[in-house]
């Protein structure tokens, strides 16, 4: 262990498209999923992360390194998270929220969910369906009835910007 030898332990993570990443154990254990694997002694070789692709994992590791380099200062951590997420598009955010959920990283999960909510807040129902890949399963009558009940919420919706 790092504490005994004085040199930081490095873990190797493998994405579902077989990319390998090295990351300091101290940063990687922000993920409860990885921490459990380390504690169970599965970290000897390569840790396979079956639900995360290489592109997303690279991003998550950037976050892990960035946030763990900040001392215990919630303000600074928050501003790092805001900056980290500021230039991400919806697709990337969606990949990240699912990865954060799989890796069980509550701080990233909170930040990305809030960011997605902020992005979709004023969007149309159609935009949300497209971005989440959701098929409308209402009949036109049912949809009209639900819409009628909350008519006021359709005021002030942004014009779709994705097509």
């Amino acid at each position, binding site marked *: 262990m790092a504490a005994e030898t004085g040199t930081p332990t490095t873990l190797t993570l493998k994405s579902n498209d077989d990319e390998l990443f090295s990351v300091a154990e101290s940063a990687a254990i922000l993920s409860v999923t990885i921490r459990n694997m380390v504690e169970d002694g599965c970290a000897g070789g390569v840790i396979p992360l079956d639900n995360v692709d290489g592109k997303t994992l690279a991003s998550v590791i950037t976050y892990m390194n960035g946030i763990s380099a900040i001392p215990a200062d919630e303000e600074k951590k928050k501003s790092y998270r805001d900056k980290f997420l500021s230039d991400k598009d919806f697709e990337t955010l969606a990949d990240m929220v699912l990865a954060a*959920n799989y890796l069980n990283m509550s701080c990233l999960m909170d930040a990305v969910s809030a960011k997605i909510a902020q992005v979709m*807040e004023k969007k149309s*129902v159609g935009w*949300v369906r497209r971005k*989440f890949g*959701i*098929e409308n399963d209402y009949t036109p009558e049912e*949809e009209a009835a639900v819409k009628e009940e*909350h008519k006021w*919420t359709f005021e002030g919706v942004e014009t779709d910007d994705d097509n």
Partner: protein
Amino acid sequence: MNPRFSDNEDVVMEILLRLPLKSLFRFKTVQKSWNTIISMPIFAKLYVESGRELNLNSDFLHKSPIDSGEICCPKISGPVKDLICIYNVYATQRIAIFDLSAVKMEIIELPIHTWHILRSIGFGFNDRDNELVVVQLLSCTGGIGSRGYIDKRVDLYFGNKKSWSKCKHHLDDLTIKKAIGTCKNGSFCFWLVETQPYNSGRFMCVLSFDFNNRRFRKARFPRLFYDGALDGKKEKIKIFVNDNSLVLFSYPILGGKLLGRWVLNVSGMIGEWTKLPSIGPFSQLSKPVATWENHGIFLKCIDREGKTYFVFYDYATREIRNIEIPRKKHDRVKVVEYKGNLVSIRT
């Protein structure tokens, strides 16, 4: 659902929990499963616990750099386009604009003045650039001006520039009695005022402010209430804004009778009040407190033991329903507007 999200309903829920209520209601139409998630009692519980409920911290109303010993008398104005304004009648230095749908509060500093004043606030929007405009009416209560008039000052706040400017007016012969509110499209707001023309009796009228033309205007009451009629002290009146018209109720001070009802279309404040069918009769002393569009009216009643309760009167069915309002003993009740509920209410 996209396999990525369909296998992860808990992730969808995490995201939904962070949306404002207005978006949540709209996204019930995305898909049946979203409607199901949003309508679950556990979702409402988590939503409230996450701190997004309306928790109006009114501390700012008490803080005043001028006079720390002042009395706090908060008023709520709105909602207009999901905004409500909270202010203090007395000389506090700030007001709050609260966005009901985004659950956000903005504090606006008021222009500094040195009078001892009474304040009334109205707010609305101009059509052209949909800019938030706040009107502040200040009345000097201490120093009576020449000829016995009460001094007035009017300030306008422009939301885009985030700045105040002083506004010319001809309101010096008016006493502001009460703010009535803003019409639904946001272009006019109203006050109940009393005029004191030189050397003549007082009479009540409605003062309007037009947010598009930045102009005040007065409209008289229905003929029945002209001049001394309200001095007889047998009937009182109460005015509300309904959509884009004003509705006026006259109610007997001693209770137990019918309430008269009149409407006036507010566009330009011209034309006559139209008399509508009276409502009631109510068995107890009843005072109108709020209206719900064209559906009905909420009344505060006092029973023989002096206990206060609230009823809703339906114009169409003439039915009177008791309403339970959860509140603490000294809480004041202000009816704002019903928009919808997260979980369906079972009857």
